[in-house]
């Protein structure tokens, strides 16, 4: 993709809305998911005003809002990777299992006596990239459908993690590694900072280089992109590797958070949360246009919802029903057809009430 002439880049079939700034413009596409998030926060304000209290406890920020950000970190990382994969028209179901494997690898390195925190983190990241490369090869070189290719590791990956852990929960005591999950810098929990760093890096890569354009063009029309000189295979390979890397980081946060690697449960079903976040963020599963910012808004909506449900004290058996209702609502908010119909309904109600007011005035 390095030999792409600049002229060809200008003629890409997709041109993202608005100027290519680092942060997106606030137009309709960004308005609706944000509105959903604001609505959720407003509900929390009514339910419990202390939701917005943030104070310092033991030199770190403490409060429900911080919890929402902190707890959303693993899914946020998954969603960043997933956004790119989905933008190329793919999907990565294996990220949850990748979290489990990365956590298991790190935990076993720590227990096995590896002292260097850099080695442990590098080991975790390397396994993430390796898994991404396996997925990427299956998709781009062997032409296996992404949902099938990544399903393999989604199912088998958890088994690999269990094998690494020999069926047990491997626990460790290591302050440096635990910092990844529970540490804080200037009071801000480290997982939040990690998400910000990864987001900034990927956003720069996607919006300040031509890479973002390549990703969108491959997602829109891989064939056409190929003829324009975009190396579609390399682009796909890259996004799966990024997704694997992000998943590995998420897995390290999860393991560090509980100071142990639980192969059965680490990252369980989180791949679906990540996909949901990307979809709430308005990305099309067919590929093409993407926005990392919107995906992160989607993540916040999901996590805010979970925290709200726990805070509100409704019986646990209603959790999932409430969650799905809110997600349907947020998705409806974004649907142009739904907006039009609601607009028409409101106009009708208005004209009726105007009429009745008019009639009363006459009487």
């Amino acid at each position: 993709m390095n030999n792409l002439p600049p002229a060809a880049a200008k003629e890409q079939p997709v041109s993202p809305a608005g100027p290519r700034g680092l942060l997106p413009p606030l137009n309709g596409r960004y308005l609706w998911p944000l509105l959903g998030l604001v609505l959720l926060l407003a509900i929390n304000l009514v339910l419990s005003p202390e939701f917005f209290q943030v104070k310092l406890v033991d030199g770190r920020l403490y409060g429900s809002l911080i919890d929402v950000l902190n707890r959303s970190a693993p899914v946020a990382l998954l969603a960043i990777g997933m956004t790119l994969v989905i933008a190329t028209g793919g999907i990565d179901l294996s990220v949850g299992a990748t979290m489990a494997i990365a956590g298991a690898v790190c935990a076993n390195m720590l227990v096995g006596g590896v002292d260097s925190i850099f080695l442990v983190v590098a080991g975790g990241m390397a396994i993430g990239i390796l898994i991404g490369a396996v997925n990427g090869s299956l998709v781009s070189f062997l032409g296996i459908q992404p949902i099938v290719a990544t399903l393999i590791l989604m199912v088998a990956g958890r088994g690999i993690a269990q094998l690494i852990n020999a069926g047990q929960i491997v626990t460790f005591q290591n302050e440096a590694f635990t910092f990844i999950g529970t540490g804080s810098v200037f009071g801000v929990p480290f997982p939040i900072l990690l998400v910000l760093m990864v987001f900034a890096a990927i956003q720069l890569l996607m919006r300040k280089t031509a890479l973002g354009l390549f990703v969108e063009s491959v997602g829109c029309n891989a064939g056409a992109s190929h003829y324009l000189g975009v190396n579609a295979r390399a682009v796909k390979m890259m996004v799966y590797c990024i997704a694997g890397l992000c998943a590995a980081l998420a897995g390290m946060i999860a393991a560090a958070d509980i100071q142990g690697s639980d192969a059965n449960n680490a990252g369980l079903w989180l791949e679906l949360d990540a996909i949901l976040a990307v979809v709430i963020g308005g990305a099309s599963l067919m590929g093409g246009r993407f926005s990392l910012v919107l995906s992160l808004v989607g993540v916040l909506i999901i996590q805010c919802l979970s925290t709200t449900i726990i805070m509100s004290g409704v019986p646990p058996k209603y959790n999932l029903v409430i969650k799905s209702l809110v997600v349907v609502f947020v998705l409806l908010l974004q649907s142009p057809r739904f907006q039009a119909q609601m607009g028409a309904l409101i106009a009708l109600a208005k004209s009726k009430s105007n009429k009745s007011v008019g009639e009363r005035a006459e009487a």
Partner: protein
Amino acid sequence: MRIPPLLTGALALALSFAQPAAAITVGFAQVGSESGWRTSFSESVKAEAKRRGIDLKFSDAQQKQENQIKAVRSFVAQQVDAIMIAPVVETGWRPVLREARRADIPVVILDRNIRVKDPSMYLTRIASDFVEEGRRAAEWLMQETGGNCDILELQGTVGATAAIDRMKGFKEIIGEYPNAGIVRSQTGEFTRTKGKEVMEAMLKAEGGGEELCALWSHNDEMAIGAIQAIREAGLKPGEDILVVSVDGVPDYFKAMAEGTANATVELTPHLGGPAFDVIDRYLGGDRDIDKQITTTGDLYTQETAAEEYRKRTGG
């Protein structure tokens, strides 16, 4: 990934063939090895059989009922003296149980239940009593706090028998104390991660948690996660908030030894002893045997925790 248990199972079977005929021979169709608890369960049965000089034919079904049925058929063909089944699922046992009865071999059900119309198809069922576990945890807590306690509850997976029954037993006892009650209850899905996340939010919903007296968790894993959340909220788990749970996993004993957890009711994996007792009685001619035998593990507290931890980790 399931190959090692299969191999060991096959090996155990092969070895048991090689042994000279022992006093009695018992076939055991185990579920598999899906959790640490299940592994201790199998180990405990094997150790108990060895201690009593019983020739145990162990079969690992790898979580498949068809493997269990095959194993039971082979036990019948080998004319063992008794069969123990830890069933994978509740239904589908009638044909193979009838074959065992025709061969006049008593069958003991361990752990999970089976559903058959005619209860005379099996000798007895030996299992843990989840309701009693809840009761014991509550009794300890009420004794410790004098019946004056605001409690947070971490439930197991919604709909799981263990969660429903533990909740029931706990509430039964708490109901007798007017000044004690569960102020908030949420599911932590039996996992450490969820336990921690849910505890964080519940503490905040209760204004930081200073007014709370205790955490009641349906298993140790969730409690271990929640203990970290309590600590991060600036409170002392085990002192500011008492922690009581069920299971008795090694990590929880460690937490108790460190003073961050208070008590746990052991979900006993030692079902082998009572099972062999019943089989001995039956083979000795005793026909007056209860259809349901419940075992409840003991409640462990901080006093013996360090010693128990050493015992359980083999250190």
